[in-house]
């Protein structure tokens, strides 16, 4: 935590005033000078928004249909007439150097985005796809699923088409689950997102591959619903979680594991 100084105290006072739209002309100039060294800071504007959300009375009035219709029309126009990113409405009091710095950051971010788009294959539509169709795709992975890491308790097969970002798990013998009590959740360990030294299990933030149920005996196909693009899968794991899945898994109940060969 930084220690406030008289200079930062004054800066915070002016930022608070700006967030409340009570900054006088002379104070605007003073704030501009202070921000020249400190860089712009919208934390008080965000704080005002948070406070507004916390204090605002519940408003059940629906958005008028005419307003919604005009919004959707505006959305269509926005998409058909792409425009440059809007400058911050507060940027008028920021020094030019800051603006140039922001542009540089934006350019770097754009480069990273382009690189990411080039690296990750385009995700296909989420329409259901068959096991055989995925398995026959060029370059598709076929991974045995087992109840143990040694692969001695096979429980199914997973196929993953990296090009189209789609996959299917085929289980046989995986226990039926009561969705109101617990559900299965797939985790995809992606080495392109997080590196590891000895074991892919070192990856702490796998991709959520979706929550699913086993509702029939025999062979059951389950489509994979990867929430973000997967670059280099190095391990697939199915856990048993509370209904709806979890955002943090304690990994206490693992139903199946598959490691690409």
């Amino acid at each position, binding site marked *: 935590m930084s220690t406030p100084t008289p200079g930062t105290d004054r800066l915070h006072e002016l930022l608070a005033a700006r967030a409340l739209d009570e900054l006088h002309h002379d104070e605007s100039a003073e704030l501009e000078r202070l921000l020249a060294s400190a860089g712009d800071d919208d934390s008080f504007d965000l704080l005002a928004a948070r406070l507004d959300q*916390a204090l605002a009375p519940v408003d059940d009035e629906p958005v*008028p249909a005419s307003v919604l219709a005009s919004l959707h029309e505006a959305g269509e126009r926005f998409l058909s007439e792409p425009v440059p990113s809007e400058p911050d409405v507060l940027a008028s009091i920021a020094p030019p150097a800051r603006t140039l710095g922001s542009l540089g950051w934006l350019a770097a971010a754009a480069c990273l985005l382009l690189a990411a788009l080039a690296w990750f294959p385009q995700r296909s539509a989420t329409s259901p796809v068959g096991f055989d169709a995925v398995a026959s795709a060029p370059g598709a992975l076929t991974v045995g699923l087992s109840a143990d890491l040694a692969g001695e308790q096979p429980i199914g097969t997973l196929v993953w088409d990296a090009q189209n970002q789609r996959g299917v798990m085929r289980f046989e013998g995986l226990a039926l689950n*009561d969705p109101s009590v617990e559900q299965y959740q797939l985790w995809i360990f992606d080495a392109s997102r997080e590196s590891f030294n000895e074991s892919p299990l070192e990856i702490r933030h796998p991709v959520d591959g979706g929550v699913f149920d086993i509702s029939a005996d025999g062979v059951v196909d389950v489509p994979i619903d990867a929430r973000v693009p997967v670059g280099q899968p190095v391990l697939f794991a199915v856990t048993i979680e509370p209904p709806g899945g979890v955002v943090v898994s304690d990994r206490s109940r693992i139903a199946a594991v598959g490691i690409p060969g």
Partner: protein
Amino acid sequence: MRLIAVHPACSLAPYAHNAVDLRRPSTLSRWSPVPERTLLQRIAAGDETAVQETIDRYSGLVWSLARRLSPTRADAEDAVQEIFVSLWKSADRFDPSTAQESTFVSMIARRRLIDRLRKSGRRPTVSEPLTPHADPAAPADTPPQEGDARAVAHAFTELSEEQQRVLRLSIQHGQSHSQIAESTGMPIGTVKTHARRGMIKLRDLLGEFAGSPVTEASA
């Protein structure tokens, strides 16, 4: 590959006994998934479907703000469209490590609405009487909160009564400091001091100086 029935039982409970123990080695921590991109991040990445989804998700929030911070209903209707266009254009500025997406939306909306008020020279009127006996800072009209809103509301109660009153009139009702001074009888300098110090104290209470991120998951 031969597939075998390992756990034909209807309950998953017995399966836990045979489950792979990935809790070893002990140095491994829990898994949390790679975060999904937010609507605004998707817009910034060129996902056209996210534009319409923002309307579905945030039109109620923006409409509520516009109704409250606009002098007339007609002004509110005009403002909503302007806010959304501004939001879409600003999508690439959203950083989920510093704020919830809904907070960012509120911030953009507030800025637009305040800008419109400044240009028009008009402020919304407060329908509630602003006497000390009908203090707008009273909790009666405060909605039930959860997550971040609850934390903010709790921190808000740590402010002095005067600070709470001034900030509620300013932020929630869009009142200018001079309007607040007139309605409360406080000198305008006192209103200004309560507002600024209240905001700074609230920021301190919420640990903003530590730069703690606020995520949707925490809400």
